[in-house]
């Protein structure tokens, strides 16, 4: 792989100087890597593999491990054919992703571009916009409840409606998405602001001298230069949409119009009926989707890391 050769080239002058470590130092270095690695592998990677393996079995989670029966892909077939909440959940996750990209993400980019002009008071605007980022999504759900409540919420008072925004399955997904978007926008704005600050100012100057307008400069010069950030933001949004959980769980534990994959997995484990194999199959689907985007993320990050 080309990346390896590049790493090796940069490593050359270092290895030349690197001395052989004393035995005690070698023990220390080993421990400094092995202890953290054990934690990450033991609590993240082995469980991930466990989920994949369990997804091919049938087990009620209560009996001992030898009660596990291998059932092949039955769980996957069942999920796709006789588990009613699954397809709505997939739809909702996709809608979640589409909404986050079209709404909050683009809005966050717009705000970043506007605030990057270093206007007077832009710090204050910035603070206001990213303040929700420090709040947990669970708390965001709570705060918006005060606007969404049917009888006492501000929204109904202003609109003169009688809608239960969190409860009505026709609208509650949108209500939740708006609350999520409130927090997401500031986060994207922050990522983009950092990216914009990294763009070489001489690029803009050159474009301005060539008579390029602000808008066309942004689309034709700035945006392409920020390709790594664009990719990472997309990965961030996909992963966030896939992991969406807190807000929905706070509202109604992912039922009645708010089915999403993460909530279904959780409900299958901690809920009344614990169906381990079944939940694991859904978990595996999540892992598969996320691994595609994690790979993209790693490639972008590690490539930049090496230059």
């Amino acid at each position, binding site marked *: 792989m080309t990346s390896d050769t590049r790493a090796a080239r940069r490593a050359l002058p270092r290895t030349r100087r690197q001395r052989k470590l004393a035995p005690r130092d070698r023990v220390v270095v080993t421990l400094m890597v092995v202890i953290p690695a054990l934690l990450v592998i033991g609590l993240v990677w*082995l469980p991930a593999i466990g989920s994949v393996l369990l997804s091919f079995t049938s087990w009620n989670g209560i009996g001992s491990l030898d009660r596990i029966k291998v059932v092949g892909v039955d769980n996957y077939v069942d999920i796709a054919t006789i588990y009613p909440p699954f397809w709505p959940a997939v739809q909702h996750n996709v809608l979640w992703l589409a909404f986050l990209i079209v709404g909050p993400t683009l809005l966050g980019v717009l705000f970043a571009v506007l605030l990057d002009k*270093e206007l007077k008071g832009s710090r204050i605007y910035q603070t206001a916009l990213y303040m929700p980022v420090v709040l*947990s999504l669970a708390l965001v759900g*709570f705060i918006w409840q*005060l606007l969404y409540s049917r009888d006492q919420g501000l929204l109904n008072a202003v609109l003169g409606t009688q809608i239960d925004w969190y409860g009505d399955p026709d609208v509650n997904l949108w209500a939740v998405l708006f609350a999520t978007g409130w927090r997401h926008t500031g986060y994207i704005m922050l990522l983009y602001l950092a990216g914009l600050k990294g763009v070489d100012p001489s690029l803009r100057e050159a474009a301005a001298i060539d008579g390029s307008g602000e808008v066309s400069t942004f689309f034709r010069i700035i945006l392409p230069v920020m390709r790594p950030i664009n990719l990472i933001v997309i990965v961030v949004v996909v992963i966030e949409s896939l992991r969406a959980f807190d807000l929905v769980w706070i509202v109604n534990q992912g039922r009645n119009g708010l089915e999403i994959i993460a909530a279904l997995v959780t409900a299958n484990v901690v809920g009344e009926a614990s169906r381990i194999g079944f939940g694991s199959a859904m978990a595996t689907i999540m892992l598969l989707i996320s691994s595609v985007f994690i790979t993209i993320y790693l490639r972008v990050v590690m490539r930049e890391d090496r230059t």
Partner: protein
Amino acid sequence: MSMTTVAPPARQATPGNAAGPPRRRGPRALLHAFLIVVSLSWVFPLAWAVINSFRDYAYTTEHGYASFGGFTFANYAEAWERGNFAQGFLNSLIITVPAVVLVLLLSSCTAFVLARFNYAFNLTLLGVFLAANLLPPQALLIPIFRLYRQIPLPEWMSDSGSLLGSYWGLILINVAFQMGFCTFVLSNYMKTVPREIYESAEIDGASVWRQYWQLTLPLCRPALAALAVLQTTWVYNEFFWATVLIQDFQKLPITSSLNNLRGQFFVDYNLLSAGSVLVALPVLVVFFALQKQFVSGLTLGSTKG
């Protein structure tokens, strides 16, 4: 939501940045007007919660929320009492502080090795750590749940008798999930430490541990501070693992205990507001006091130290 960004090196100080083509006044005023409206509407949901948290329920029921008056502090006292906030905050403290200390300690160890030496496994290790940071936690729930139930803990460590339902288990899973991000940021930061420093330290006979503890760590103070702020916020805000791993209501950290609060406060939205503001208070204080660290923590990966 723990991710890093990557960008070219930061732009130089920009007093001359405004020296572009002269701009017209009109659009600028329009832009300000737009940003003011946007900022106000962004602050509004939280401001609404704050205002109503200070109002009497009987008053707002009678006059509606669009009225003015009925201000009181009573909601806070009542929310604190009924929501079991003292215990919730204590639990959050018990979980957050060790988790943040541990994640910074362990990740700085690995980051040091990654930055200081050139082993063949460096890149793979970083990849394994970083990817772990992005996996959906729900996808690991079943094995973790079983594993935690299998691992016994003595009575003095946890009254649940196993890792499941103990502070220890929650701290460990938080640390494991945050390791990737911190290791990545710190190793990038440590790579900016000049090699010559280590060489002269070696000549002085400093062991690897001393180089790490007395040389590298002090130099990394800004990065550590930024990460500490960020991690404190994230662990405090963590909802999923606490919800599924802790069954005892008395042991829930404050963020996860929100789930029970709604039942407790029922329809009294002023009480609910007061509760929300109380939970938001610690992170808001951190946010306003240490804003610089917070932002630089979020974007640290981007500027490469």
